[in-house]
């Protein structure tokens, strides 16, 4: 099906990544999983997904640096990005906002269904 929406999920915690991948695939997305920031960057630039969901604390390149690198790319200037993290200090929130990232989700507060719903809202497919 060509109307698959694509999402890149960068998350270093194995079980967490699997849960997200499963959920999004079941919800009709094509998912590009990445286990660290570096893999996230190379996959993002290659696959150009419709939306990205990133953790902040990750090996090699952290989520905030990853946002900067993606925004530096012509394709990545406007792509919607959601941060899904357990770190919620004001500096990170402000830093992400500088790059047009306002969705700052604290993992423990979100159900998988609601995360999918938010992603669909951002892609305007509801």
């Amino acid at each position, binding site marked *: 099906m060509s109307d698959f929406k694509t999402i890149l999920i960068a998350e270093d915690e194995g079980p967490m990544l699997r849960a997200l991948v499963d*959920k999004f695939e079941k919800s009709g997305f094509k998912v590009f999983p990445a286990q660290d920031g570096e893999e996230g960057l190379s996959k993002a630039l290659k696959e150009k997904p419709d939306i990205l969901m990133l953790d902040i*604390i990750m090996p090699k390149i952290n989520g905030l640096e990853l946002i900067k690198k993606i925004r530096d790319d012509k394709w990545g200037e406007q792509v919607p990005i959601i941060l899904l993290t357990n770190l919620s200090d004001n500096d990170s929130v402000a830093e992400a906002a500088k790059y047009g990232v306002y969705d700052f989700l*604290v993992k423990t507060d979100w159900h998988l269904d609601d995360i999918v719903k938010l992603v669909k809202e951002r892609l305007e497919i509801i």
Partner: protein
Amino acid sequence: MITKIKLSDKILLFTFFFSSLFIVFAKFVGGISSGRLLIFTCLAYNLIFIVSFFVNKNFIKRLEAITYKLEEMAAGGLSKKLKIKGKDEIAQLATAMNELMSRLQMGIAQDVSKSHELSQAKTDFVTIASHQLRTPLSIIKWYIDFLLNGDAGNVNSEQKKYLEEVYLSNERLIELVNALLDVSRIDLGTFSIEPEPCDLVLMADQAIQKHSAEISRKKIKFKRKYDRLPIMNLDPRLTRIVFENILSNAIKYTPESGMVELVIKKTDKNILIKISDSGYGIPKEQQPKIFTKLFRADNVRKIESVGTGLGLYIVKAVVEKSGGKIWFQSPSLELLLSDGQKESDIPIDKRNAGTTFFITIPLEGMKKKTGTKKLTSADYITDQRK
């Protein structure tokens, strides 16, 4: 024990000895007549008195300076040293004082760096706790989601019941971690207050709505009385924390078919929020402790085992840091008394019942406070976009 002769006595002895010597000398060596000697002696004593007066005055002045310094030290002033003149006892005392001051200063400096280390360790703990505890908690939450949603096949009603228990316990743990994080942020002073225009009444209703299932399950009669309020500058997250904690206590600690009332009034300077319940009340002897960390009153501990004992500590800090006040009254029989009834009409076993919490928020809104962290409870940062 030999008592040393005091300094002022030394001066007196010294002057007495030399003046006597002088008189003897004048009488026998100088051959002066007795009349003249008397006048002469008077003059000499006067002179000696004047000299010793000035000498004494100098000593007293120096002693005063030392006393003053001691008082200053007691109040924490350790920076300015005493000037040392001469080598007498007072000078020695002043030297000893200066030395004591240096040692105290060093000790305090060590204490400060120690407490800084300690607070750094606490911050590190908070960061570790936040990341390390929340990660497995969210994993558990999400996999229970899968099972409960039937993503891994249908679950029968018994399995569903068990999974729901697991889910609820996990939510309790999440809540506890969030509350602990909030407490650390309060204790370290790192939490921020970010006021923005808010509708207080709407937020109150949303908080009640969140507890609506519990209210109807316990058949609680819920009354609300609101004044017309202007849009106020409030930190929505903190306001939510306050309402949710106070309301959840009122509902949790009110028995079935009881009453809870939320009143929001506008006064000259403040908004007064009053939350009354007809619940179990707070035992008198434990009332002074209710805002302390991890405290839960004995009477409710027996009735309801769930509760962290952190809610009111957080609420008090939030209210006071944002410029308001919080206090309570228990028993609070208002809700138990129908028209025309007196306290004596209430059965004896219910006379300790009911609690009313009072919270004020200044009319000009919450005071802004910069900080590195937001309080975590209700951490939906995504509503910035709305």
